[in-house]
């Protein structure tokens, strides 16, 4: 019953989306009420469809193929529900729901002053929705039945049973899909004739902020999961799927900042339009790369070539339409008012270009193996060394400017006055940098650069926050402070990481940095749906005091025949001690991996702070928008 209802609601969504498209085309003759009915209907039918699937998972309805393949009756309810978006079909349904939610909020902007324009935005948005609903119905129907009905599900991967991972996909989708609003706005702006009086950049900004903020926290949670669950000692691996989320984030960051310039100075409008189009296209291309099976990655989804063709076709349609529109009509948005390099907008523009260059570099690295395969029959993979040697040199000047730019005035800044402004932050940075190096005593170039940049951002943004200066936005200072903390953590954990992989028997002792670690014992334990062996390690500091007892596990899940490793981590504000229990037995000993990861916690604190800055800014912008309407 419920699966049929869900499927019916999905088809109904398609009808409403088509209706919305028709109404928006014949805009003049339609009354507001009809519009509202269609848009609410679209939202409600997608909600019903999505919650039907959640219900099927919650009651473990194994007559549904999707539930049978991805759930198991022994799983805790929370993970049963999280399994809805842990697979391709379910996640597409969530994707559609988020699209219709944004559609609903775009409609909230509708007023007498702007109805022609908003109608154009809704038109593009409905085309995107139609594209994805048809995709779901034709190639990835989540409500497909299975005969004969099954008694037990195939379970899902136990490494996915993690709270960070359970909420990571929805946040990411809000991010990706949020850019669809920016895309629809951009297409509407390009195809409208009388746009001068409409503050479209102010309409667009809250949507972009929303998408960007959620993308930030979504990516951070993915990293947290990788760090705690995978047991590889790191938190970012330049995997194609990680890149697929990082690229829209980069363009989103650029878009956000150029939107500020567009709003304040009415310049950079064509640039804003291009970035809006590209951020969404990159989100869709990212989805294509992940779901078509064209690349191999740790995030493998079930593969089906027809899906790849469909998504690529949709991407082609959306991309060609919007970019041809851009090529032919963006001319009128280009103004020839050049501005000074020494100004707020000057620094934003330079940073925008640097960010776009970083994004192109990452894109090239991601698809390079594919390009090589087209022209030769060789297989290559692009890894960390490429990204480290290309991304870091471009990002360093960008971060320097990030510290300098916000303190400048709009239009033009006086050089001498400016120097006075930055002296306090500059001196604090020098002091702390010296202090840090007396603690860690490691002098690699990247390390020095990273620490200077981090404290440069932290000190000048903290000063803005402490002094409560009216000239600066609190949200900006908070978000930039977060980036400073993030850089601190990234630098510490990548430059000063120490790794030891050794074979240990019971009572063996190993020394890592200033800690002595003793392998005390190994015990067998039983969990709710797994059995495990657990290693007990005692960590002594230099003065022979026990500071931590770490218990990494190796779990075996009989249902799916899976073995997973559970990392044990001792965290404080200066470092993580990270222990992974590997293969072994009583006689030969166990392989133990021990990582000393400095400052990792600051990565998470930093990301959370950036998120907080985003939330504050969303709030401010919504208030501004209310005044505008």
């Amino acid at each position, binding site marked *: 019953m419920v699966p049929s209802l869900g499927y019916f609601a999905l088809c109904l969504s398609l009808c409403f989306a088509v209706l919305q498209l028709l109404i928006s085309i014949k805009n003049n003759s339609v009354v507001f009420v009809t519009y509202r009915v269609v848009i609410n209907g679209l939202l409600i039918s997608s909600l019903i469809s999505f919650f039907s699937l959640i219900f099927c998972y919650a009651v473990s309805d194994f007559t549904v193929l999707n539930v049978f393949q991805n759930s198991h009756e022994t799983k805790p309810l929370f993970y049963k529900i999280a399994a809805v978006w842990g697979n391709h079909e379910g996640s597409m349904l969530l994707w559609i729901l988020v699209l219709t939610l944004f559609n609903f909020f775009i409609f909230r902007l509708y007023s007498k002053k702007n109805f022609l324009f908003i109608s154009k935005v809704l038109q593009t948005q409905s085309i995107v929705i139609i594209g994805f609903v048809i995709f779901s119905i034709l190639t990835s129907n989540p409500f497909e039945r299975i005969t004969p009905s099954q008694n037990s599900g195939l379970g899902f991967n136990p490494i996915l049973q993690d709270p960070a991972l359970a909420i990571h996909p929805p946040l990411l989708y809000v991010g990706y899909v949020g850019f669809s609003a920016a895309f629809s706005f951009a297409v509407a702006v390009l195809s409208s004739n009388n746009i001068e009086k409409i503050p479209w950049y102010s309409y667009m900004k809250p949507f972009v902020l929303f998408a960007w903020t959620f993308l930030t926290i979504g990516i951070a949670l993915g990293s947290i999961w990788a760090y705690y669950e995978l047991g590889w000692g790191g938190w970012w691996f330049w995997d194609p799927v990680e890149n697929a989320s990082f690229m829209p984030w980069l363009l989103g960051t650029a878009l956000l900042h150029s939107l500020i310039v567009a709003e304040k100075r009415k310049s950079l409008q064509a640039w804003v339009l291009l970035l809006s189009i590209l951020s969404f296209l990159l989100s869709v291309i990212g989805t294509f790369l992940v779901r078509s099976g*064209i690349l191999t990655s740790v995030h493998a989804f079930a593969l089906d*070539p027809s899906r790849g063709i469909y998504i690529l076709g949709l991407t082609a349609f959306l991309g060609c339409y919007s970019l041809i529109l851009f090529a032919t009509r963006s001319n009128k948005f280009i103004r020839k008012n050049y501005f000074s390099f020494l100004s707020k907008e000057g620094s934003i523009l330079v940073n925008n270009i640097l960010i776009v260059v970083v994004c192109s570099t990452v894109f090239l690295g991601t698809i390079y193996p594919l390009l090589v395969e087209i022209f030769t029959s060789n297989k290559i993979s692009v890894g960390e060394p490429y990204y480290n040697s290309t991304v870091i040199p471009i990002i360093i000047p960008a971060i320097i400017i990030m510290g300098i730019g916000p303190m400048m005035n709009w239009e033009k800044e006086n050089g001498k006055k400016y120097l006075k402004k930055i002296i306090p932050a500059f001196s604090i940075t020098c002091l702390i940098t010296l202090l840090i190096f007396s603690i860690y005593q490691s002098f690699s170039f990247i390390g020095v650069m990273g620490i200077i940049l981090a404290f440069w951002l932290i000190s000048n943004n903290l000063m803005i926050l402490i002094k409560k200066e009216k000239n600066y936005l609190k949200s900006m200072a908070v978000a930039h402070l977060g980036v400073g903390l993030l850089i601190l953590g990234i630098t510490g954990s990548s430059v000063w990481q120490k790794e030891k992989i050794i074979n240990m028997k019971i009572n063996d002792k190993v020394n890592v940095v200033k800690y002595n670690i003793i392998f005390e014992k190994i015990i067998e334990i039983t969990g709710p749906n797994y059995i495990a062996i657990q290693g007990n390690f005692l960590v002594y500091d230099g003065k022979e005091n026990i500071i931590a007892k770490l218990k990494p596990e190796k779990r075996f899940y009989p249902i799916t025949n899976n073995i997973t490793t559970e990392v044990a981590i001792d965290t404080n504000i200066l470092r993580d001690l990270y222990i992974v229990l590997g293969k072994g037995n009583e006689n030969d000993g166990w392989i133990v991996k021990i990582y000393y990861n400095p400052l990792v916690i600051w990565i998470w604190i930093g990301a959370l702070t950036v998120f907080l800055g985003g939330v504050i800014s969303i709030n401010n912008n919504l208030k501004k928008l209310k005044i505008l309407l």
Partner: protein
Amino acid sequence: MRKKTLIIPFAIFLLILIAFFNLLLKERNPSDIPSNLINKKIPEFEAKSLLRSEKFLSVEKFGNEVILVNFFATWCKPCRDEHVYIKRFSDEKKIKIIGINYKDKSQKTIQWLKKLGNPYSNIPIDKNGRIAIDWGVYGIPETFVVSPKKIIKYRHVGPITKKSFEKINLIINEIKNDN
């Protein structure tokens, strides 16, 4: 001039699109691992033979007919899974199969073959994994198709499944027809 530069994003997009379509329509498996040994002569080796007292010399045993080389071990579960297909190659298709016993205990292997049946015409022992290194083995099980002229024609990484069984058969028939 300015108008022309605005077309650049579209042009780049189009190129990327063409590249993606090209890859999508091409029959390829992203997890395929190509071998440098394809269309090259087999790496020669000599080793003890499991069920015979004589020494195994690859110079003598290869040539004249299509031969499958299968790296296997009793401790490897996927090897057990693919065993049915290895047997079908020998029983139904009458293909000669050389099974290279990789880092294994001989006594265990003999038991294993007694239980599951022995499809191999000869079983050279690769005690320290030396032969596997020469053949560029990525992980066992792994199977190579060797032509009558001692040329490696195809390499399959991982257990043979129903699908790959058919594919390998096709390749064998092709080689037979060429000769």
